[in-house]
């Protein structure tokens, strides 16, 4: 089932009076429970594309459709459902947490956001942490007191609390060591199987993308698409 669809999207920024084109005519279909890999050299617009797909930026042309509806014409209620169901995991796992809050505080903020009652927070966190292979002791630590692998697991756990249907993973293992990378890739595969989440997996590492993806889209100066 098609869940997220980019229809000939393009993005440009206005810079000193002229337009700076980041990418153009990019189309992609993301199906429930499947992974679309997005590869390309640095500067080709992969991360910008991820931000457009996640609704963090508006495309300059084309449309992004979520469950068949243009995300920039959604009602307020539909928009907040979209923002809950489409989660983004960033490259720098430590930097994606608030440095002034403990991991526990960052997690609790998300639980409150989805209206989980206070007395259920611990159970809910224990459940999600067990899922991603984290010890509860890290809840009292600050982001810079845990390893990159632990932070990326925590970021995935935080995303999962929202019970997403799509996860946009922007270079999720680039900052990690080779054995931790393997652990995170296995975790992501397991989470996808369990919850039928669709992934948009962005990486400059073709080996990682080939391992993870059902479909691969190569981004170059002119977007082109290939089936695995």
């Amino acid at each position, binding site marked *: 089932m098609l869940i997220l669809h980019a229809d000939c999207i393009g993005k440009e920024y206005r810079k000193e009076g002229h337009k700076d084109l980041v990418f153009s005519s990019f189309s992609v279909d993301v199906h429930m429970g499947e992974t679309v890999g997005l590869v390309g050299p*640095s500067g080709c617009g992969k991360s910008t594309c991820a931000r457009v797909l996640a609704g963090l930026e508006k495309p300059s042309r084309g449309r992004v459709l979520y469950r068949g509806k243009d995300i920039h014409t959604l009602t307020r209620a539909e928009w907040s459902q979209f923002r809950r169901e489409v989660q983004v995991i960033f490259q720098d796992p430590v930097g994606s947490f608030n440095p002034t809050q403990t991991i526990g505080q960052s997690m609790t903020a998300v639980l409150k956001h989805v209206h989980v009652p206070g007395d259920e927070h611990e159970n809910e966190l224990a459940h999600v942490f067990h899922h991603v292979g984290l010890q509860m002791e890290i809840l009292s630590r600050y982001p810079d007191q845990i*390893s990159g692998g632990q932070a990326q697991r925590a970021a995935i756990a935080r995303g999962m609390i929202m019970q997403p249907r799509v996860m946009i993973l922007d270079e999720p293992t680039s900052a990690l*060591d*080779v*054995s931790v*990378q393997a652990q995170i890739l*296995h975790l992501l595969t397991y989470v996808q199987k369990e919850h039928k989440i669709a992934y948009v997996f962005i990486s400059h590492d073709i*080996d*990682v993308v080939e391992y993870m993806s059902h479909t691969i889209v190569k981004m170059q100066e002119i977007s082109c698409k290939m089936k695995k």
Partner: protein
Amino acid sequence: MAGNEKKQQDNGPISHMLEVENLSVTFKGKNGDIPALRGIDLHLGHNECLAIVGESGCGKSVIAQAIMRLLPEEAVLSGRVRYNTRDLFSETNDTMNHIRGKEIAMVFQSPERALNPVYKIGRQLVEPMVMHGICSRSDAHIRAKKMLTELGFKDVDELMHFYPWMCSGGMCQRILFSAACLLQPKIIIADEPTKGLDADRISDIEHMLNMASTEYTGVLLITHDLKLAQRVAHRIMIMYAGVIVESGDVSQVFSNPLHPYTQGLIRSMPEHGFHPISGMSPALSDLPSGCVFHPRCKHAAQDCQSEIPKWKERKEVDGNAHSHMVRCLC
């Protein structure tokens, strides 16, 4: 494989420019001591590239900082670092200032942070050459531009007037490498030179590392990138939780890894199917007894929990000149 094709120049009898003997570093902290390095031995010869490979936080960069005497005061060092005939731990600060850069240069990780953001690139390349008395300022300008051109930069004149923040991570890394090479040091220590770079930029850095080890000097490459080490280095040391666990020629270690941790790292690589090592690296403040790897090791026996493994040498059947060493009880 490239590793087998790499050749060192023949300098007759083996002479080591750099020798580290039984180096240990402990950081004194409020909550107790943190043993960052324990009993590190290594040596580096002329035109040789030695890679130290291990996961983040295992203490790789501490080795580099200990050699350069850049560790903070709370670090307690023991052991010896010998550069040619000098004992670096007993040299004065003035002598060390002369050795740093001119004799042993270091390319730090995070190039954007290693370059001064308020000085132009040209100044940062020229200044060290003038300071170390290598040549005049005008000559230094010519040398800097020549080096940048060799490294594939196009508008060199314009680049000399750029600030670091106007350059990408890959450009900054190449500029930092140029700054090190321009001083014509005998040893270059490259600390995670490819971190965060994409494939094209990694091949630029590889080219520079090869150039450095064949044309100039010995290279101590510190990296978590196994593939880079395999392509560039002659010898490799695998490090885990502050200890070297395996050491040998690159081709030996990759074709016949002896330590279960090395085997695990190789199995984690893409071409071997991303099989992870179970568990996590221990915190240096809370190391397991006996063999540091035993809680994650599939082959761990009773002895591994209490006995610290000593070096064992494995003779290779093909009669390779370098020995293949492992610290494992199995």
